[in-house]
């Protein structure tokens, strides 16, 4: 009651404006008195669709604006392209122009209303008063929009964090985790003495170094166990006989994520940290990276990689989902998490293949290919199989004879992978399909037809076959094949243009009026984060990557390489990578939530279920996709 009384001392309209402000950052963190100061000194203006709100001609900016209703778009004239580009968009609850009012200069961007728009604004002196008195407001204004992105990342982490309660960040440099002065010994030390030294220091591993402190091997308690069980040598033999040679090493500036990935890939629990001259300076164990045993990436990868039954592999899949939750809690960004998922999926696929070869070897060497999102290393928990086989026809055999042996084998593998949770591909893009179990020559022909005789139907497959990677078997043939494909695409301008036109069809989920555009089929009010959010990025980036000879298949890596090749501007690429990663993060968080509720995973979300901040982020991310498509449009004159 006291609060209510206090409230009535402020006019209704002041209170309602305070209420409006409170729903948005940074105002949500500001004191009531500061909000009241804002509301009481504000002016409310109306701008019809297309009206100029602020422009360079207005001179030094003397008001600070908040959009109360409608939207403002920023326009800059692109002299080169002779046209006007929308550089940003400001929607309800957002502020402008931050840089100009703080820099006491005119704005460089024309601010124009989109739709019926109301803006609250305060004069510069009120702005200065608030900046000097309100810390959250000051932080926000001085840090600009970046703090908004920080907030989102923070939220994604704390959401997953709730179940884990720890705050180790995977992007922390390795030196923070590394044990300085690791226990070392020379290669000639008897095992007995090496174990005694480990025991004295209460550690599970010892690094074997040469005279100049270069690590040459590592000996762990597990090696000791194997040695005794298998009686390979005696305790008096020198440690070099039983150590693991050439231990994995990382530089001190690598981050914890790099270390975790390396460990997962090679199933090691220990890594040496070295300086520029390869001299040992520290030691990192899996346990150091994840002080909580629940986040057990390496162990999980190892368990998958050594499982002896399909049953075990199937049961391990739930651990993968739990791990993803934990990874997000530890500050892994969405790019890192999808790579982890891909790594674990690769391990699973390899193990299924190995188990089947053991059981029923087809007797012909082959390379297991993956396409699409797995090829791009962008898998999430919701994934289906897109795979194929590449083989070299042995002498004296025809290609069809090889297929006779490989196809039944592939059929079993496809089915077993399905049991592990990799849904069978509805389009039959699987290794057991005779059309996708081909020799290197046949693959070559296939791509010639695909690229030179590009039909619209063919283009549908571009998102699958142009993102290809070897998961199992020799990689050399695939590299050669990819080289030839790349050369062919670069020479064929028509194919590039058709590819670009196809990518251009993938419209981000925004209407002309910058509202969310919902999927038309069936589900009302829902967005497809994969098709309407990620695909526009993936497809457009692929066109640029193929046209410019970029080798990697991963979308983020492709963008990095495109910056190096000066196809993308660094600033643009950074915005696009952020946008892409944020959509991915929102998608993965929603997957985790669906799992928790025991629902079937889907890529659909209702934006109304998101909080206001995420909705804004999503809208801005979609707008970045539109910008990327604009670049496609200009480059290929679509």
């Amino acid at each position, binding site marked *: 009651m006291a609060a209510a009384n206090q409230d*009535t*001392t402020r*006019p*209704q*309209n*002041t*209170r*309602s*404006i305070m*209420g*409006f402000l409170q729903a948005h950052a940074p105002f949500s963190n500001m004191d009531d008195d500061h909000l009241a100061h804002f*509301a*009481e*000194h*504000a*002016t*409310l*203006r*109306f*701008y*019809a669709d297309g*009206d100029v709100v602020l422009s360079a001609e207005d001179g030094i900016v003397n008001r600070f604006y908040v959009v109360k*209703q409608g939207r403002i778009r920023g326009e800059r004239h692109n002299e080169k392209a002779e046209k006007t580009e929308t550089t940003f968009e400001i929607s309800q609850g957002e502020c402008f122009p931050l840089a100009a009012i703080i820099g006491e200069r005119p704005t460089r961007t024309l601010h124009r209303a989109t739709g*019926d728009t*109301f803006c609250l604004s305060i004069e510069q002196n009120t702005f200065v008063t608030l900046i000097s008195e309100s810390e959250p407001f000051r932080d926000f204004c001085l840090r600009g929009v970046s703090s908004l992105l920080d907030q989102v990342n923070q939220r994604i982490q704390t959401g997953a964090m709730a179940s884990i309660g720890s705050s180790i960040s995977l992007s922390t440099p390795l030196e923070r985790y590394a044990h300085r002065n690791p226990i070392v010994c020379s290669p000639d030390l008897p095992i007995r003495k090496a174990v005694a030294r480990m025991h004295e220091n209460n550690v599970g591993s010892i690094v074997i170094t040469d005279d100049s402190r270069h690590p040459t091997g590592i000996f762990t308690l597990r090696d000791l166990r194997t040695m005794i069980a298998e009686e390979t040598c005696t305790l008096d033999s020198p440690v070099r006989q039983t150590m693991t040679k050439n231990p994995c090493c990382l530089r001190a500036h690598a981050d914890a994520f790099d270390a975790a990935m390396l460990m997962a890939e090679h199933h090691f629990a220990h890594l040496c940290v070295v300086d520029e001259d390869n001299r040992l300076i520290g030691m990192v164990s899996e346990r150091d990276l994840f002080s909580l045993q629940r986040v057990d990436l390496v162990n999980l990868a190892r368990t998958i990689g050594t499982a002896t039954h399909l049953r075990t592999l199937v049961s391990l899949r739930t651990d993968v989902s739990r791990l993803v939750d934990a990874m997000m809690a530890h500050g892994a960004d969405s790019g890192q998490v999808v790579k982890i998922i891909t790594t674990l999926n690769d391990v699973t696929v390899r193990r299924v293949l190995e188990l089947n070869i053991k059981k029923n070897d087809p007797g012909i060497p082959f390379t297991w290919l993956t396409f699409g999102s797995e090829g791009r290393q962008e898998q999430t928990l919701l994934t289906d199989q897109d795979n194929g086989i590449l083989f070299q026809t042995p002498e004296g055999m025809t290609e069809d004879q090889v297929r006779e042996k490989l196809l039944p084998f592939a059929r079993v593998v496809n089915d077993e992978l399905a049991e592990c949770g990799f849904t069978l591909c509805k389009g039959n893009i699987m290794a057991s399909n005779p059309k996708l179990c081909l020799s290197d020559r046949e693959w070559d022909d296939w791509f010639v037809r695909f690229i030179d005789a590009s039909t619209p139907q063919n283009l549908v497959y571009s998102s699958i076959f142009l993102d290809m990677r070897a998961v199992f078997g020799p990689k050399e043939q695939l590299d050669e094949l990819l080289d030839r494909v790349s050369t062919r695409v670069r020479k064929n301008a028509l194919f590039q243009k058709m590819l670009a036109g196809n990518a251009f069809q993938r419209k981000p989920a925004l209407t002309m009026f910058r509202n969310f555009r919902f999927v038309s089929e069936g589900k009302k009010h829902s967005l497809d984060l994969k098709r309407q959010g990620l695909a526009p990025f993936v497809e457009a980036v692929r066109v640029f990557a193929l046209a410019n000879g970029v080798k990697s298949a991963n979308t983020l890596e492709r963008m990095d390489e495109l910056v190096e090749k000066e196809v993308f501007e660094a600033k643009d690429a950074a915005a696009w990578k952020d946008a892409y990663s944020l959509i991915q993060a929102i998608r993965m968080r929603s997957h985790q939530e669906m799992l928790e509720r025991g629902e079937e995973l889907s890529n659909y979300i209702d934006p109304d279920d998101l909080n206001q901040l995420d909705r804004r982020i999503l809208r801005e991310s979609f707008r970045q996709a539109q910008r990327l498509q604009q670049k496609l449009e200009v480059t290929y004159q679509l």
Partner: protein
Amino acid sequence: MLEQIRQWIERRRAGQTGNTAPENMPNPKTPGDQLLSECRLIVLDLETTGLHPAKDEVIAVGAVAIKGGAIDLSDQFDLILKRPELDITKTVLIHGIGPEALTQGHETEDALLFLLEWMNGDPVLAYHSAFDQKFLEKTLKAELGYTQNHTWMDVADILPAFFPDALTKGKGLDNWADHFGLEVSARHHAASDALATAELTLIALNKARKNGLKTLRELHDKLRYQRRLKDIHRI
């Protein structure tokens, strides 16, 4: 608001504000060549005990001012004159003002004098303004003996005059607010309704400017013409 009135009353008692008798209040302005882009307009909404000016009374006055084509929130009026649930007919309680600051028995008079001074004789806009005009004029006459007439304009006329093709679901304030997607914070609260009415007025003034209307007189004339058209249609 109350603080402002308290200070105003104190100034008046100290004789600092000159003669504040009703006859010395600012004179109402007639619609002339004042530029719409510059002049001050009052947008007002009353809360009353009922619909009949003859027997019902004003409970609350909410008003905002439009100046230079914008709503200036530092220039607003939001006052509850009477609390009907207390059923004290004559001793009007001005909620929250301590008795020591008031001239006993003259609370309503003081508040209305302050309102008149705040209005500054500027034209008054309201939604279905005839209603508010009757109530306010009746109250001003009864309490202060004030009989001068302000220029009143009806926002319910202004909107269809500038947006003849708008497909609103009805003719009410809510319909127009919905049409333009406005969020009204507390509907039927005088000040909140006044703000919504003022926001709609801004939209209409934006359109008026684009139609080449510049002065208050031009706006006033257009409304008179519009009203006449409507009357012809009615016949």
